[in-house]
């Protein structure tokens, strides 16, 4: 059986983790939730780093391999110690060994893997993370972003069956975050290692995750494809300022004179202000709910380039005075955040035909 099957029940003081998850065995799965929702505890439990106490039990199988079965109703308890689990773990703070050089850090895990299991070469890992020039440096002399890249390469060098990342960007400033994101995206596209990625940043989730687990107070609110969960109005991710829809589009035409690329998605044409795209390229586009306004008729004489015909699929209250409207645009879901007053003035109901005017789109790569 492929995929990751995890059941964890533990009580830690007044916090209780109680999750049952069936996750895909490929791609990036984001574990998303507010601080204190149990994201890190879940990730550490999967790694085997959380010490078991009396009231806890768990079951974990990775690609059919049972790593743990400590449920109270089993006769034969299984608990593979951390160092026998084929996983890579990237901590929030890079956690490099300061007594070793970067090269020494990379070799540390690699040397402990049997030759037959080495699928990711050290060259591949260093190249992927762009750290070839840092190999002889001491960890203490690296910047935060460099350290985190070394930590990721070090984890990859063990050719893990599962890569666990605990908010690897959390300790970095905005610029370093932006620098590191492309490397994470490359992991995604170039390696066939399933990744569990803990985050509380919606934009990271939107960029990186294929699959999403929403945690709240130790419980799973929802688990499913990212696109679907981001636009489900019954979930917190589809509310607030950061609410956005993700659509997949294919570039059909570029218009260099205007720095524009024109792409096609399920809901029609979309123009992107990004001249560096190539014809035929698949792009992930984020449309924020606050950048979408609704009209009953197609506007003429407007500066807005992207207007899509859509149908209202559901409506939900958002922050006071504002409503979140989910739209179906030819099978793609979009979100629009409008005022309660406009909602009433337009008389919108589920099923109402509307035009979505999109003021801004972001290409996520």
């Amino acid at each position: 059986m492929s995929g990751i099957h995890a059941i964890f029940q533990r009580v830690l003081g007044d916090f209780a983790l109680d999750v049952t998850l069936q996750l895909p065995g490929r791609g990036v799965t984001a574990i998303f939730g507010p601080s204190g929702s149990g994201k890190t505890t879940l990730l550490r439990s999967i790694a085997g780093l959380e010490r078991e106490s009396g009231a806890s039990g768990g079951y974990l199988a990775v690609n059919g391999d049972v790593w743990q079965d400590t449920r109270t109703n089993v006769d034969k308890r299984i608990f593979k110690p951390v160092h026998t689990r084929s996983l890579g773990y990237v901590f929030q703070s890079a956690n490099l060994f300061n007594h070793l050089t970067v090269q020494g850090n990379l070799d540390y895990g690699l040397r402990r893997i049997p030759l037959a299991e080495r699928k990711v070469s050290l060259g591949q890992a260093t190249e992927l993370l762009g750290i070839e020039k840092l190999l002889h440096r001491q960890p203490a002399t690296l910047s935060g972003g460099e350290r985190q890249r070394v930590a990721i390469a070090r984890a990859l060098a063990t050719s893990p069956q599962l890569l666990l990342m605990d908010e690897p960007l959390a300790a970095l400033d905005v610029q370093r975050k932006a620098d590191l994101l492309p490397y994470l995206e490359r992991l995604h596209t170039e390696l066939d290692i399933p990744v569990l990625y803990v985050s509380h940043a919606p934009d990271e989730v939107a960029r990186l995750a294929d699959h999403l687990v929403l945690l709240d107070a130790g419980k799973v609110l929802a688990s499913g494809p990212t696109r679907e969960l981001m636009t489900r109005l019954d979930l917190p991710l589809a509310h607030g300022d950061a609410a956005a829809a993700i659509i997949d589009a294919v570039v059909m035409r570029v218009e260099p004179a205007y720095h524009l690329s024109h792409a096609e998605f399920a809901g029609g044409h979309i123009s992107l202000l990004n001249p560096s795209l190539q014809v035929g390229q698949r792009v992930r586009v984020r449309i924020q709910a606050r950048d979408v306004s609704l009209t009953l008729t197609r506007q003429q004489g407007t500066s807005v380039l992207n207007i899509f015909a859509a149908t209202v699929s559901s409506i939900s209250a958002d922050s006071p005075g504002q409503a979140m409207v989910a739209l179906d645009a030819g099978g793609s879901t979009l979100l629009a955040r409008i005022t309660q007053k406009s909602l009433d003035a337009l008389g919108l109901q589920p099923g109402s035909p509307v035009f979505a005017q999109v003021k801004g789109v972001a290409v996520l790569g």
Partner: protein
Amino acid sequence: MSPLEAPAIWQAVWLTVKLASVTTLILLLLGTPLAWWLASTRSWLKGPVNAVVALPLVLPPVVIGFYLLVLMGPKGPVGQLTQSLGLGLLPFSFAGLVVGSVFYSLPFVVQPLGNAFEALGRAPLEAAATLRASPLDTFFSVVLPLCKPAYITAAVMGFAHTVGEFGIVLMLGGNIPGQTRVLSVQIYDLVETLEYTQAHWLAGGLMVFAFAILLGLHFLQPKKTT
């Protein structure tokens, strides 16, 4: 009593060095798991064990020596055990001195190691575990190199402190040349017999030794870089 012959002095020096070396070695082997346990346990025993380890810091060595003498004597439980094992009695022997010194210098080894283990925290251990290192492997490949300064301090302090002990030796070892007559006892003897010149040489030598060791420690410790 005639002035001491050079061989007698060298015998005392050699005995002292031997005692301190054996004691330090045993302390490092014994102190590592003990300090590790103290740094990581959440057991209620932590407090009492910590207090016992620290006892030699506050108790007069003579008191420790007295109780060890009673324990290891012919009627003491430890003494009866060593006798039934065919080891004979420990008091007034080199082995007895080693036992006493180990206890006496324990805090000087356990405390720096414990502090280092605590400062190290769990993070590097967890990183090593996720990189496939077993706990023992982790100890030798991560803990030992990262705690090297603490091990140097512990070894030097354990050695130097053992060299300087007197009370336990006197209670437990008496004053047998070549067996239990270490430098501090030798100096005491010399002063008793008013051989001040020779006492000066030995006492001064110990002063220089202690100063050199503390100075050496200062230069051996890595400088704070941040």
